[in-house]
């Protein structure tokens, strides 16, 4: 430090000391934004600038003459460093020399410092020195890690998310070209993103023909409005119709490029839900009016009698109560299918309340009933129950009812076989010759509304009611048959 303005040479034979004295070179080295370390052929530190002090936590005075490897090189690389230096000293060749590499250094505290390292070698007088310029990459690495993290979120959205994104660029000739589309298009429409980008699959060919013209108009409008969204149908790779909402925004970049950033959302499920809701409303309206019509009819019947009997009012009230019960049970299931044993339990539960000391015994596989069939079935079962309470298995001489069901003929025409077997002690008191309205209903309603068969036998042991109903009619969804009609 005393001999200012000169580089000292090794030939002085003194202990290693700083090479740079206070002159222009010293100032430059001190002002470098990067760390600079000079090492000699024996691997000792000969120069260590201010930046290096900050980067590694050592003061210059402390490290001059120390072995570099023992200071700032992590353990696992010390050996390689020493070998490399030896090799260079023998051959003049080293893989690191003249390169820019990324490597970890070691701070005094033991913290690893990610570095960009550039080493050159040259002669200084008769002495070989190595000049290393080191740049701290900690911040840059953190930034990169953050970018990678965000990028991985974006990748996840683009691969697994429900929304498809795309970028369209306006080329110099004014033509637009799809530049990128997110790979999740595969999940939503079944097309490979690459096939769309390469125009092997043309958007135009996938749009529902009825929607093509209005959609093209909407797309052109985006250039005027700057942004907008519109809905249309796409025929997907399975030839199925999907409802799509597309949103587009025009982006003018500083470099003059004009791009459209867009997104596609699959609305098919929502559309189906909406359709079902409309259907439901319509069917419920229809059903309410039918029920009112039936009630009016029942009231008419009572009114037409010469004198009104209490019994008639009871029958009327029981039928209305049964309609109300079925309505309630089906409404609780959002007008979807209902389990048969649930349905019977509800209807029979109302009966069993009336006569609590007799059994209603159910046996059968789990089986779902569609809403239409459930209404029919519940009406018939209610009528059977009303009769049973008066004359049969639920009456004073009744010993209960066994209700069983199974599905038959799975290989040909599946039919639901349902039987209602009443048990009475002694002779039943039913007059089998009379064909009242209740019996007409029990016999006629299932064939009329569900295309089933009904068989009624008045056995000495009690009434037996057996019906066979085609499974498809039994399980038809609400308004399934009317679905096509209401689409008109």
């Amino acid at each position: 430090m005393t001999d200012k303005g000169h580089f000292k040479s090794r030939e002085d034979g003194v202990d290693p000391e700083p090479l740079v004295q206070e002159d222009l070179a010293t100032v430059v080295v001190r002002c470098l934004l990067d760390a600079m370390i000079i090492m000699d052929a024996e691997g000792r530190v000969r120069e260590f600038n201010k930046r290096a002090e900050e980067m590694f936590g050592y003061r210059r005075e402390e490290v001059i003459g120390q072995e570099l490897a023992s200071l700032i090189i992590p353990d696992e690389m010390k050996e390689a460093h020493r070998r490399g230096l030896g090799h260079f000293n023998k051959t003049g060749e080293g893989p690191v020399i003249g390169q820019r590499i990324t490597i970890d250094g070691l701070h005094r505290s033991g913290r690893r410092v990610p570095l960009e390292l550039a080493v050159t070698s040259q002669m200084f007088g008769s002495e070989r020195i190595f000049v290393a310029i080191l740049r701290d990459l900690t911040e840059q690495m953190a930034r990169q890690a953050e970018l990678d993290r965000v990028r991985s979120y974006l990748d996840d959205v683009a691969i697994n998310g429900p929304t498809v994104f795309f970028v369209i660029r306006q080329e110099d000739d004014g033509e637009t070209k799809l530049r990128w589309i997110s790979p999740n298009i595969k999940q939503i429409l079944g097309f490979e993103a690459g096939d769309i980008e390469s125009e092997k699959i043309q958007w135009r060919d996938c749009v529902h023909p009825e929607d093509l013209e209005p959609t093209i108009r909407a797309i052109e409008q985006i250039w005027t409005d700057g942004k907008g969204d519109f809905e249309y149908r796409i025929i997907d790779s399975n030839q199925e119709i999907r409802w799509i909402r597309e949103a587009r925004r025009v982006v003018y970049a500083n470099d003059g490029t004009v791009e459209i950033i867009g997104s596609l959302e699959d609305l098919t499920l929502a559309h189906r839900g909406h359709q079902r809701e409309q259907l439901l409303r319509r069917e419920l309206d229809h059903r309410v009016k039918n029920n009112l019509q039936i009630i009016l009819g029942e009231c008419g019947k009572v009114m037409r009698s010469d004198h009104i009997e209490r019994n008639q009012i009871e029958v009327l009230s029981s039928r209305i109560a049964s309609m109300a019960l079925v309505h309630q049970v089906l409404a609780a299931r959002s007008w979807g299918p209902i389990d048969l044993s649930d349905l019977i339990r509800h209807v029979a539960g109302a009966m069993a309340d009336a006569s609590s000391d007799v059994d209603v015994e159910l046996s059968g596989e789990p089986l779902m009933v569609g809403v239409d069939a459930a209404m029919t079935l519940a009406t018939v079962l209610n009528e059977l129950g009303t009769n049973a309470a008066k004359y049969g298995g639920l009456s004073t001489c009744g010993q209960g009812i066994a209700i069983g069901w199974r599905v038959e003929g799975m290989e040909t025409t599946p039919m639901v076989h349902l039987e209602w077997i009443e048990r009475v002690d002694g002779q039943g008191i039913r007059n089998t010759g009379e064909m009242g309205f209740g019996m007409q209903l029990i016999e006629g309603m299932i064939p009329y509304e569900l295309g089933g068969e009904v068989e009624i036998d008045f056995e000495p042991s009690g009434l037996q009611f057996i019906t066979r109903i085609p499974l498809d009619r039994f399980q038809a969804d609400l308004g399934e048959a009317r679905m096509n009609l209401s689409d008109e």
Partner: protein
Amino acid sequence: MSPEGEEKRILVVEDAFLIGMDLKISLEQLGWVVLGPAPSASRAMSILEREACDAAILDVNLGRETSESVADYLTNHHVPYFFLTGYDSLNIKDPALQQMPLYRKPMNREGLADAIKKHLDNGKAA
């Protein structure tokens, strides 16, 4: 009006059993001989092939189909009829059929008697 004592025969097409039965009873009390009730168009057509028919009341939606084909047949054979529906909109494509008289459920006996007097008895006389 048909001559006194001659049977007036009316076809009822209605997919709800209880409504069909009630219409049958009401119409019988109004002096009609009821054909049906038929729950489907095919049932109705097979009745029409066998029986003479002077008038008809048609529910529009019959579960899996509409009564359009029956209406066409009746129109072609100059049999008067009207529609009776529980729906707010009529699911009938044929504009000619859309011109036919339409009544909505629920309909009481008096309404039924009026509708018949207005459309079906007159139609027969014409």
